[in-house]
C-alpha cells in the first residue's frame, strides 16, 4: 500500500511538472513579438463586417478602422460633421447635399484609387441590399454629377444627412472588386462573405483574419493616405468582461471595452487609464398607452406618478461615475437635448397624490426587461430590481418579468407589454433620430401611441422639422420636453462609455463615435 501511495505521488508530481513546464513556456518565435500589436477585448456581438450590413458595436468598431467615410466627426465632436473623403455643402432647403471628392490620394488596400464611382456604388448598395442600416439613406436619391461630384437629393428637407454620413455603415468600398465578387446594389447582392474575409476599404487597416466567434485581426493598410498607424496589427478578441479586467491589469490586453463602473475602479494608474465618455445610449421606462394592454400605465396620472417616484440620483450612482441625468431620450450632448437641469425629480408625496387621482389600488403591473443584457456596464436586471424597490416606496407594485433579450424585444415589438425597460442607441447624433418616439413613430407604435394620439406633439414635431440651423435646437428641445411630460417614456439615465486602456499605450484618442481610435494610438 505504501508503494501505491508512492506511485500515486510520483504520477501526480510528473503530471504537475509537465503541466508547469508547458504552462510556463512562452514562445513567439513563429510570428514575432507583441510590440507592434494592440490587443483589444470585447464581448462580441459580431454578425458581419460588411459595412453596408453591419449594425452592431463590434462590427462598427472594426469598420471604423477599415473603411473611410464621406464625412467624419473630428475628434469625436458629434455636433460638427466635417470633411472626410469628401467636402460637403447643403442646399438652403436642406434637400440637396453636394459631395466633392477631396482626398484625391486616398487608395484602397489593393492600391486602387478611391473614385466617385466607388462612393456612388457604396451609397446605392447600402440602400438596395435592404440590410439593417439601409434606412440611413431612405428617401435619398444618389446622383453622380461628374468624376469629382456626387449629389444626394432628398424628397423632404434632410438636415440630418451630414450627421448620418460619418456612420461606419456608410463606409466606402472598392466598387470594382466588390462587383467582381457578386456585389450588387439590390437584394441579389452576394458579397457579404467576401467582404467579411477580404475587406475593401481605404482606412488605416485591412482585415487579415475574420472569425465572428473568436477574434478579428487587422493589419496596417500600406496604401492608407493618412498618417501611418504606429501599431501595425490589431487583434480584437471575444472575451468576457471579467477576463478583460484581469487582462488589462496584467498587460495581456491594451484595450477593454466592457468594464462596468466597479471593475473600472479596480484599475490603478500603474495598470492603465480609464477613458470615460458620455454614452450615446439612453435607458428609459416605456408605458403602454392602450388601456386594455397597459392597464394603469395607460393613465397619464399614473405615468407621472411613476416619474415622480423614481430616485434618479441613485440610478446615476448605479450607472457609475460619469453617467448623467436625462430630461428626454436625446443624449445631453446632442442638438435638441433637453437640459438635464429640467430632468424629473423624486417627489414621493406628489407621486402618491397622482396615484390617488389615477385610482390606482396597488395592483401588480407586469414589468418587462431583458435579463441578460448590460448597457455600458449597467445590468438591466439590477436596474429593474432597483426600480421595483424605489416604486414600492410610493406603493407602486411592479411584477418583474425578466426574459432573454430576443424574447423581450419580440414582446416589445408586438406592442403587448404594459411597462418595462427600453434602451435606445443613437444611430446618428441628430434629434431626428428620436422621431421614432413621437406618436406614430416606429417605436411609439410599440406602446400603441398612434399618429393622432397627441395633436400638440404632432404640431411641435412639424415645427421642429421645418426649423433650420440654430432654431433646430430650440424647436426639438420643446418637442422632446413635451414628449417627456406625457410620461409615455420616462428617461432614466444616460450611462457612460468606459474604455480601459493599458499602461503600454502612452497616447490615444478616444471619442464618442469610435470609442478608441487604433490608428491614432501611440
Amino acid at each position, binding site marked *: 500500500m505504501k508503494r501505491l501511495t508512492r506511485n500515486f505521488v510520483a504520477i501526480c508530481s510528473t503530471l504537475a511538472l509537465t503541466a508547469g513546464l508547458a504552462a510556463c513556456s*512562452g514562445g513567439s518565435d513563429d510570428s514575432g513579438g507583441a510590440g507592434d500589436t494592440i490587443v483589444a477585448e470585447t464581448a462580441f456581438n459580431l454578425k458581419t463586417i460588411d459595412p453596408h450590413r453591419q449594425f452592431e458595436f463590434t462590427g462598427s468598431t472594426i469598420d471604423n478602422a477599415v473603411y473611410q467615410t464621406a464625412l467624419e466627426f473630428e475628434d469625436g465632436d458629434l455636433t460638427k460633421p466635417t470633411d472626410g473623403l469628401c467636402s460637403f455643402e447643403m442646399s438652403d432647403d436642406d434637400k440637396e447635399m453636394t459631395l466633392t471628392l477631396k482626398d484625391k490620394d486616398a487608395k484602397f488596400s489593393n492600391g486602387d484609387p478611391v473614385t466617385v464611382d466607388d462612393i456612388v456604388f457604396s451609397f446605392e448598395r447600402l440602400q438596395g441590399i435592404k440590410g439593417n442600416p439601409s434606412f440611413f439613406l431612405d428617401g435619398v436619391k444618389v446622383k453622380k454629377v461628374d468624376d469629382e461630384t456626387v449629389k444626394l437629393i432628398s424628397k423632404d428637407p434632410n438636415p440630418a444627412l451630414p450627421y448620418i454620413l460619418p456612420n461606419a455603415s456608410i463606409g466606402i468600398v472598392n466598387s470594382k472588386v466588390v462587383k467582381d465578387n457578386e456585389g450588387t446594389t439590390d437584394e441579389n447582392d452576394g458579397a457579404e462573405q467576401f467582404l467579411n474575409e477580404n475587406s475593401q476599404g481605404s482606412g488605416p487597416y485591412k482585415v487579415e483574419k475574420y472569425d465572428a466567434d473568436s477574434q478579428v485581426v487587422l493589419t496596417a493598410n500600406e496604401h492608407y493616405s493618412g498618417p501611418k498607424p504606429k501599431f501595425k496589427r490589431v487583434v480584437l478578441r471575444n472575451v468576457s468582461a471579467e477576463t478583460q479586467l484581469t487582462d488589462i491589469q496584467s498587460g495581456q490586453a491594451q484595450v477593454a471595452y466592457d468594464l462596468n463602473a466597479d471593475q473600472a475602479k479596480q484599475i490603478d494608474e500603474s495598470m492603465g487609464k480609464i477613458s470615460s465618455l458620455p454614452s450615446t445610449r439612453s435607458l428609459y421606462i416605456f408605458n403602454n398607452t392602450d388601456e386594455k394592454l397597459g392597464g394603469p400605465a395607460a393613465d397619464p396620472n399614473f405615468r407621472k406618478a411613476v416619474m415622480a417616484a423614481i430616485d434618479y440620483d441613485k440610478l446615476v450612482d448605479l450607472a457609475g461615475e460619469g453617467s448623467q441625468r436625462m430630461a428626454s431620450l436625446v443624449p445631453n450632448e446632442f442638438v435638441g437635448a433637453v437640459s438635464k437641469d429640467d430632468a424629473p425629480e423624486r417627489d414621493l408625496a406628489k407621486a402618491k397624490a397622482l396615484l390617488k387621482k389615477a385610482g390606482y389600488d396597488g395592483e401588480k403591473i407586469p414589468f418587462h426587461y431583458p435579463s441578460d443584457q448590460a448597457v455600458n456596464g449597467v445590468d438591466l436586471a439590477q436596474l429593474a430590481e432597483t426600480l421595483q424597490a424605489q416604486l414600492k416606496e410610493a406603493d407602486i407594485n411592479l411584477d418583474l418579468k425578466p426574459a432573454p433579450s430576443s424574447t423581450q424585444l419580440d414582446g416589445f415589438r408586438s406592442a403587448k407589454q404594459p411597462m418595462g425597460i427600453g434602451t435606445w442607441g443613437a444611430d446618428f447624433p441628430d434629434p431626428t433620430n428620436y422621431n421614432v418616439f413621437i406618436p406614430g413613430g416606429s417605436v411609439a407604435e410599440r406602446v400603441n401611441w398612434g399618429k393622432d394620439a397627441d395633436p400638440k406633439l404632432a404640431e411641435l414635431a412639424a415645427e421642429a422639422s421645418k426649423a433650420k440651423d440654430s432654431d433646430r435646437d430650440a424647436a426639438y428641445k420643446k418637442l422632446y420636453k413635451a414628449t417627456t411630460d406625457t410620461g409615455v417614456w420616462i428617461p432614466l439615465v444616460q450611462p457612460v462609455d468606459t474604455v480601459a486602456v493599458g499602461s503600454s499605450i502612452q497616447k490615444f484618442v478616444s471619442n464618442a463615435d469610435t470609442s478608441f481610435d487604433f490608428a491614432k494610438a501611440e
Partner: protein
Amino acid sequence: MAGASTVPQGTRDAAPPGPVENDAAQRIEPPKLHPLLRFILIRIGISILLIWGVTVVTFLLTNLVPTDPVAAILGDRAAADPEIVAQTREKLGLDQPLIVQYFTYLSNLLHGDLGVSNQTRTPVLESIGQVFPASIELGIGAILISVVVGLLLGLLSALRQNTIVDHAIRTLSLIGISAPTFWIATVAYFVFFFKLRVVPGAGRLDPWITPPPKATGLYTVDALFSGQMATFTNALGHLVLPSCVLALFTIGLLTRFSRSSVLDIIRFDYVTAAKAKGLPTRTVVFKYIFRGALVPIITVVGLAFGSLLSGAVLTETVFAWNGLGQYAYRGATTLDLPVIMGVGLVIGIVYILVNFIVDLIYGFVDPRVRVR
C-alpha cells in the same frame, strides 16, 4: 450502468428450451454473423434511429420557443419595415409551413448541409468545424487529467478506507463536484495568471501568435505537425489551466465512483484468494481489483467525456476558449435556430458515439460481456 443494458442478447438465449419438432428445424439456417459484428451492426442501426430522433426533437424544441427569430436578427429600424421583415423571413425559409421547414432541413442534412447561421451568415458546419476541435482539445486535456488523478485517488481512498487519507480524498472530491465552475475558473485565472504568472492568459494562443496551419484543428497537434515547437509549447501552456479547471468536477466524480467500485470488488472471493495465494500487492491491486472495478467506471468516463466534448460553456467563457460551448451559448442567446439545431445534432452524435465506443470497450475489459 447504461452501457451494460445495451449488451446484445443472442436470439437463441431468448428461444424456449427443448427440442424443436417442426419443419423449420430442417431448414437451412442463414450464415451466422460473428456476434461482435452483429452487435456493431445493431448498434449502428440504433444510432441512426437515435440521430433521426435528435433531429426531430431539436427541430421541434427550437421552433417551440415563443419568439420570432427575425426579431433577433433585425435592428429596430429594419424591424419596423414590413418589406425587410418579409424579405428576411423568406430568405430564411421561415415563411414555409413547419413540416416543409423540417423536411428541407432533413434533406439538406442528408447532403451534409447544416444550414447557415441567421446571425453571421456563416455555414453552421464550417463554424462547428472550427470550434469543435477547440472543445476536443480541451476535453482530451481535461479527461486525461481526470482519469489519471480521479482513478488513482479513488483507488487510494478505497484501499485506505476510513483512514485520514480516505476522509481527505472524499472531502476533496466533494469540493470538486460542488464548487461552481465559473467561480473556480475566475479565481484560478486571477491567481495562476495574474498573481503567480505561472500560466499564460486567456485564449488558445497568445494574441500575437499566428495559429498553426490547420490539419486537425487541435493547435497542439497541428503545431507539432508543422514543426512549430514554440507554437506547440504556447498552445500546451494555454491548455493547462482550463483543462485543470474543467477536470475538477470530473476528478471528483471519478474519485467517488472508482472508490465505491473498488470497495465492491475488494470483497469478492477471488480477490481474497489472490491475496491468500501470496500474490504481490501490485498484482492484486491492478490485475484483480482495479480491472474488475473498471466496467462501471468506464461508463462514467464515457459520459463525462461526452459532456466535456459537447461544450463547457462557463470554462470556455472565462478562458476565452472558442469552443462548442461558447458557440452554442451564442446561438441560444441570439435565437439562431440553425446553430441551435446544428449544435444539438452534434452533441447528440457525440453522446451516441461515446456510448457506442464504451460498449465496445466493455467487451475488451470484461470477459463476461465477450462471452454473452
